[in-house]
């Protein structure tokens, strides 16, 4: 089947035509009836694996409730974006999920879920990042079952999240906080350790994290009644690396293809799976493997969406409104490179060192915990590898990091890569700003075409 972008109704025509799909799959339109109105405004990849991916994403709440009913231990892993879930998924009968993911609910439900209103009522207004929807979700208890345990990183994290998580704890949801230090450059006299990208970091900061993860390991043992041995953690890391390898293959195939072999929207969703596996690591692996197969097949057959002249855009930060990902292609661009704030969750975790040491390295490689200069360095490296022609920095309204990083990243990328950069701001419902966003994207494309 030749790839193209289709409506949700059109994608639903695949229902019943693909054998062997898991039980959670059904017509996506059923979610519209439940309030996920944004689906009617989105365009989707027309493949069977896209149909499965979207079903997987939109049934997370149901699957979590089934897991709870089946007696599984549910852990809400907050903020760290990809490290503690590796640990928790190593433990049998345990599921990690990501309450922060509620930030997309206002978009998907087109604000009809009332989560932002709940947050407003608690004094967490629009001066905060849209992740404030998570607070609303804890109040309404409608979007995920309350976890058995909450683990949250603090320290070098954004203020919005930390402040909101503190309010959640004060509402009676105890949180186990762990310290994520600001990762700095080592001084000349310090012992160093190479991070996942090879850059040196102070060894002492690695030791802090090992101590913190040792503490969390004991807590997990106590709570789950399972011995969290090095052996099971190593097995968990191996499993996570498989997921990360698949994502690496998917990203490379998509970014380096001659044309669009996967829409930006589906790639964003696929990358999100790396953080916490959408509450099912086995299914995540199957879906990513099939996505890799699909895009490789498209490349082999020269099947592309749209024409090949689309401008190659590197995208920084996730968008609160998924519709904006669709717009990129509508205005003659394609996604070629991403930093959705969790590039560290895409890197392989070392398997030849003790697991807690390896996980500490993974956490330290989170570019959000160091400076924007370090983040920009990775972006530049990827831009040069992929050949991206422009950069879009998507600002998250209210987010504490967005006030600074745009300027720093923009200047470094312009200097190092010589490509044009624009900043756009994307609220959870960007409809009223679409003209502004559209103009900026079109202008960016025009500049690239002139260059």
């Amino acid at each position, binding site marked *: 089947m030749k790839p193209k972008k289709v409506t949700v109704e059109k994608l639903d025509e695949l229902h019943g035509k693909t054998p062997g799909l898991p039980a959670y799959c059904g017509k996506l339109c059923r979610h519209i009836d439940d309030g996920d109105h944004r689906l009617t405004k989105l365009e989707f990849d027309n493949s069977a694996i896209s149909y499965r991916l979207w079903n997987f994403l939109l049934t997370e709440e149901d699957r979590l409730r089934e897991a709870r009913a089946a007696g599984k231990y549910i852990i809400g892993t907050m903020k760290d974006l990809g490290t503690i879930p590796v640990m928790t998924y190593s433990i049998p009968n345990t599921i990690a999920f990501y309450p922060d993911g509620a930030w997309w609910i206002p978009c998907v439900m087109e604000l009809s879920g009332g989560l932002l209103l709940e947050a407003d009522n*608690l*004094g*967490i207004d629009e*001066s*905060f990042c849209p992740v404030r929807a998570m607070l609303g979700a804890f109040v309404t208890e409608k979007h995920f079952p309350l976890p058995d345990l909450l683990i*949250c990183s*603090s*320290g*070098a*994290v*954004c*203020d*919005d999240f*930390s*402040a*909101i*998580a*503190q*309010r959640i*704890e*004060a509402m009676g949801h105890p*949180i186990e*906080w*762990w*310290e994520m*230090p*600001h990762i*700095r450059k080592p*001084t000349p*006299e310090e012992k160093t350790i190479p991070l996942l990208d090879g850059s040196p970091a102070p060894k*002492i900061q690695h030791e*802090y994290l090992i*101590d*913190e993860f040792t*503490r969390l390991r004991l807590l997990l043992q106590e709570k789950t009644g399972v011995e969290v041995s090095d052996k099971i953690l190593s097995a968990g890391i191996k499993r996570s690396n498989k997921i990360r390898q698949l994502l690496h293959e998917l990203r490379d195939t998509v970014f380096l293809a001659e044309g669009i072999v996967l829409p930006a929207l589906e790639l964003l969703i696929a990358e999100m799976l790396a953080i916490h596996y959408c509450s099912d690591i086995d299914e995540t692996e199957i879906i990513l493997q099939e996505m890799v197969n699909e895009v490789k097949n498209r490349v082999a057959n020269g099947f592309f969406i749209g024409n090949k002249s689309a401008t190659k855009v590197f995208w920084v930060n996730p968008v609160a409104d998924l519709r904006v990902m669709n717009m990129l292609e509508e205005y003659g661009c394609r996604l070629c490179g991403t930093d959705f704030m969790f590039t560290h969750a895409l890197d392989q975790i070392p398997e030849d060192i003790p697991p807690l040491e390896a996980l500490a390295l993974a956490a330290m490689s989170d570019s959000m915990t160091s*400076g*924007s*200069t370090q983040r920009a360095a990775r972006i530049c490296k990827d831009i040069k590898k992929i050949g991206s022609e422009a950069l879009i920095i998507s600002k998250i309204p*209210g987010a*504490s*990091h*967005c*006030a*600074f*990083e745009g*300027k*720093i990243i923009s200047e470094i990328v312009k200097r190092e890569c010589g490509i044009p950069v624009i900043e756009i701001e994307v609220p959870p419902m960007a409809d009223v700003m679409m003209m502004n966003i559209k103009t900026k994207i079109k202008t960016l494309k025009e500049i690239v075409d002139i260059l």
Partner: protein
Amino acid sequence: MKNKVLYSSQYIPPEWIKIHGFQPVNMISQNNNAFQESSEGVCPYAELMFKQAELFDGSAVVFTTRCDQMRRISELYSSSGAKLFLMNIPATWQNQTAIGIYKDELKRLSSFLIQTGGTEPDFENLVTLFKNKKRPDPPKVGNEKRIALMGGPAIDFDSGLINLIQEHSAKICLDATEIGELAIPDVNLKKLADDPYSELAIAYFANMPDIAKRPNKQFYEHIDEMVKQRNIDAIIVRTYPWCDIWHAEIPRIKELFKLPLLHFTADVCTSPKNDSRLKTRLKAFFEIL
């Protein structure tokens, strides 16, 4: 000026800077005229600190990671000739790792100061410096309304706020701002002499109540005790725009203390005495009281 070190947070012991042969200069005490306009999304207090650092003609500037905005704004600092040190302040405090981080940061700051032209730390002098340092007694109050002031660090414009409050027969009896009474460390001199790193880590970090800590129950426990001891009548919370840490806690402060509360957002470009909107709000607040 070259023997001066500018610092930006209650977590940085000025005494520590002093025993390395430098004169500590609190950014708060600097001239606020450095600030002309604020940038979109940026905490004006953090931006003010940044501007002052840029104008500073001393040996070094010390920022902290206490909040995301301060952590990130230090990255923009480059145009001054002074060296920069970013001190990592943990958000957690109930575990040994956090205390260990703070102690290690003190050691790293010490090395930095020595490399910047300072001396080896004079620990005997450290004890002497703390001998006269203690929390002030609560202010004596007559018939005035007793006010607890909370929120971001006060800058010198705030003298205008204090005057405005006094005009309404009220008095600030509890300064619970970031650099207020709670930020004055309670140091055990004997322990300080025995192990200065550990004692400073306890006094300047572990025991220092701060709304930004995770969890921040230590802040509420201390304030609750002081509010009761001092028979506080009302609370004024002054926050800076985009300060999520304080902003998020306003409803909780209201709920826990059950006292009349006035919250306003500070404009660092305008003195409270020239802010007619604030003056009207204060007038209405005190009328209701």
